[in-house]
């Protein structure tokens, strides 16, 4: 059982959500926009983890919960699993997805070759615009883990697209 939604609809909705929050609701206040988007992701992740752990027993430890996020949760959301999981065994986990679905079609506007010096600021602006799209998945992971009883902080790193890493720091 389960209703289906076209993936293009979800993609377009997410694009529009980020664009609305960044350009209309909190124009020039990107910190606030980011926080709102992350809060929306938190709610979504909270509810999704409730749904996807319905018939499972409780998780033994943090690692089990993270593995659930990497395998079952990620496959439900993105039809693939996390490609690489690293940990320092002290509460920090790095989840790496080599081809993150929501960023797969993102490409920067090509700046003209004449602008040598001004290429850096415009590239930074592009990177900043791109990073806004990562707050929602970070919120989802944070919401899912907090519903499983693991408060944490999640940040994302997208230095080499389309691969993307999510860093989960569990609060002691």
């Amino acid at each position, binding site marked *: 059982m389960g209703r289906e939604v*076209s993936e293009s609809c979800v993609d377009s909705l997410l*694009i529009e959500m*980020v664009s609305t929050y960044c350009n209309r609701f909190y124009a020039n206040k990107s910190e606030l926009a980011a926080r709102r988007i992350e809060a929306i992701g938190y709610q979504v992740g909270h509810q999704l983890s409730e749904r996807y752990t319905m018939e499972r027993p409780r998780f033994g430890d943090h690692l089990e919960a993270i593995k659930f996020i990497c395998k079952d949760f990620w496959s439900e959301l993105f039809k693939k699993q996390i490609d690489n999981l690293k940990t320092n065994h002290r509460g920090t986990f790095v989840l790496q997805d080599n081809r993150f679905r929501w960023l797969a*079609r*993102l*490409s920067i*506007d*090509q700046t003209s070759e004449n602008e040598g010096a001004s290429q850096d600021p415009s590239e930074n602006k592009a990177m900043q615009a*791109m990073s806004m799209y990562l707050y929602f998945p970070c919120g989802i992971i944070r919401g899912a883990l907090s519903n499983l009883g693991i408060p944490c902080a999640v940040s994302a790193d997208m230095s080499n697209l389309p691969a993307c890493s999510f860093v989960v720091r569990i609060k002691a």
Partner: protein
Amino acid sequence: MQFFGGSEISPSPPAPTATGNNAHMMYVFNRNGVCLLYREWNRPLHTLNPQQDHKLMFGLLFSLKSLTAKMDPTSAEKGNLGVPQLPGQGCSFHSFRTNTYKLSFMESPSGIKIILVTHPRTGDLRESLKYIYNLYVEYVVKNPLYAPGTPIRCELFNTTLDQYVRSIA
């Protein structure tokens, strides 16, 4: 009626054949005549400056579409010559050929026109143009950083397009 459905890029592209680019150049216009993309792979002769070139191309297609619809011997109801028609209305012309090049054309229901100029012995490129339209949808329309109606500057789209055009027989 043309259908542009399917979320996966379809049809699957033909197997790559010769190396080197087979096409001369390509234009993409939107419904209002804005040239969204102009790509040139092999064009030894330039006669006009880019603005005039784009305007001429758009005007030519507009007139050709109107003319072909008006001269259609099979359909009973025809608009008046020069009257703009909705995309998909009237008979849709798809290519013309001269002794030195062949121009293939496709218009989507949303008014996106794709023009591909190749060498004269190219076969029917309608399927290829549909594939290029799907590439446009995937890498341009779904790119979060692209604003509709502005010229296309998406790297992913350009590289995939170059790769595909190279493989058209």
